[in-house]
């Protein structure tokens, strides 16, 4: 059982990272940031291109891929969200724009590189944690899995520190709590928001690199990521970043346990059943506070 828990949490670490980035953008801009899937897929493909096509060493390639995600996020805010906000677009319009950005990117990637999964061909070995667990199975964690957990933990703590201990963080939290009041007090959202979306996309980009190294890339990879992130944000409580990250972990655990116990067909059924149950019992999510924005 403890092995199942561990494997589930490992699977959840990547989801937590994606959800954290998505939640950060959602809480600050108020936009249901579907384009998170686009920046995610772009990072994955950038990593693949840099390693497979350009032959760059993997640390350089992955750093480049994360930078691509950040730049793409910045561009989404400056090129799409800001002009629409200036024209007083409704949140529905912003959501559809975001969805459109995702669809365009996913289809362009498919057109350019085909629909099939492209493996990166990286192998970081694996660690035998235990010869035989309670089920008699060896407990093995791959290098990529361990790196994912480590990176997710470090990035979560670093971002949390950034948000709670710096003036930048104060501005982000102020804008998230009440954008109008923050603007009235002189906070320059035109400068702040691109930085936040870029930061959220960087976090997603790191997660995309972890997925790419583990299982390769394919054009629709952003969809699974953004759907999981959306579920995690709702389950964790909109506006609660630790809640979102925790919900991401929980989601990984539920999906893994569902597949392990009942078969892969039950992954989505149980994931969304969990979502509905939590929404019915706690409409504001597990860690959500009363709505004041």
């Amino acid at each position: 059982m403890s092995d199942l828990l561990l494997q589930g949490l490992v699977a959840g670490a990547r989801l937590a990272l994606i959800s954290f980035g998505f939640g950060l953008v959602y809480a600050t801009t108020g936009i249901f940031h579907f384009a998170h899937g686009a920046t995610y897929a772009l990072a994955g493909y950038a990593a693949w291109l840099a390693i497979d096509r350009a032959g760059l060493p993997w640390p350089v390639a992955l750093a480049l891929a994360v930078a691509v995600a950040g730049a793409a996020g910045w561009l989404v805010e400056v090129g799409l969200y800001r002009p629409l906000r200036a024209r007083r677009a409704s949140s529905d319009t912003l959501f559809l724009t975001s969805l459109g950005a995702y669809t365009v990117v996913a289809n362009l990637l498919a057109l350019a590189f085909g629909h099939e999964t492209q493996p990166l061909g990286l192998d970081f070995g694996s660690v035998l944690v235990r010869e035989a667990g309670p089920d008699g199975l060896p407990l093995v964690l791959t290098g990529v899995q361990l790196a994912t957990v480590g990176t997710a933990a470090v990035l979560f703590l670093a971002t949390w520190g950034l948000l709670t201990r710096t003036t930048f963080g104060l501005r982000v939290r102020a804008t998230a709590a009440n954008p109008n009041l923050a603007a009235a007090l002189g906070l320059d959202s035109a400068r702040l928001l691109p930085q936040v979306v870029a930061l959220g996309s960087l976090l997603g980009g790191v997660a995309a690199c972890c997925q790419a190294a583990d299982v390769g890339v394919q054009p629709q990879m952003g969809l699974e990521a953004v759907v999981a992130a959306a579920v995690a944000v709702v389950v964790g409580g909109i506006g609660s970043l630790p809640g979102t990250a925790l919900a991401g972990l929980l989601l990984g655990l539920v999906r893994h346990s569902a597949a392990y116990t009942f078969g892969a067909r039950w992954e989505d059924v149980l994931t969304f059943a969990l979502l509905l149950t939590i929404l019915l019992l706690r409409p504001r999510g597990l860690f959500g506070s009363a709505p004041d924005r």
Partner: protein
Amino acid sequence: MNQTRRWLFAPALLIALISGCRRAPVPEGPPPPSSGAPTTAGAPLRIGAIFPLSGGAGRIGEMKRQGADLAVKHLNAAGGVQGRPLEIVYADSKNQATEAGAAFAKLVDVEGVAVVMSAMSQVSLALAAPADRQQVVLFANASHPALPGKSPFVFRNLPSTKLGAPLLAETAYRDLGLRRVAVLHINDEYGAEARKLFEEKLASLGGKVVGSQTFEVGATDLRAALSSLARQKPDGWYIPGYGAALGLALKQKRELRLPGVVLCDLGLVDANVLKSAGPAADKVVVAAPDFDPASSRENVQRFVRDFEKDYQETPSFDAAFQYDAVYLLAAAIERAKEPTGDAIRAALAATSDFVGVCGPTKFDSQGDADMPMVVRMMLDGKLTSLEALAAVPPTTKPTPQAGGKPSDETGGE
């Protein structure tokens, strides 16, 4: 407007002249479809193709399209069919029966084709009824055993699951000494049928399928399913599937250090799957027809050489079968007195003496390909003889008596 048209017309004419004047190479290999001049003239002779060209099974469609396109290229260079250039009109099924149904109607009603090639079991099963109703030849390269019986208009040259799965079960039991096999199959008609046929055969011999799980075409994390099956302590695995998910299943089984030899179908023999699997594809046992890219046969060499030139990869079984399929159809259309579905069906059923790149092919009374299957093993991306498997670990060619003790190390990783 006229000006534009003229501009477009000029290069088109130039290309037509150049390609028309080029001396066509003399055809080798598959039966010469044309007895006449090596140049084609007149309106193109069109056949339809409904393949999954996007979505999770897009890779399968792409490989089939590559094989079909190369066959058209070779055929047209050798004079086309009935002196006319052959042309394939493609439609994307997205591996969905409803999409395929709409595409079929369009190909038959609008494009007026009398022959449609298709792929994937669930799509082809759905197309069999309209093909029968409209008397259109459906050349369905999918492996579901029920497919050929659906209509006299349905043919295929891809081996049926009923040839591969039971043969693998027999190999597992008799040659590899496996008694408890876990099945992880792709979640579609083909995967479910492969599991059923494998399980029946293994049970009839005295072995047992100790658990089965499915995976989706686009699955990336199969660790939970693999671990769950491993709880049953299988001594072998049957993983019928295709696409990157199959490669990842093998890779993750190896990463999790789960013991037991793996048996797979033709889906493994695909450059992309092998790349996803990496070293985990080594020693996987495969039941496959006798197509060997390294064969010294002239038609195979030409096919492989031109395929590698055009697509920079070794042709898969899917590409090879589709190449042969187009040649089989071209030969039948050539022999048919009139270009109707019924005449082509009769000509196709009468196929004899056809030797394609996948070897001699003829059809049984149901339009199913009758071909020998061989069990081989993947090693360094190539299929080799099964004997090498026994030579690798310091064990076992277990005795074939029932109840013989299975060895844990058989072909282990």
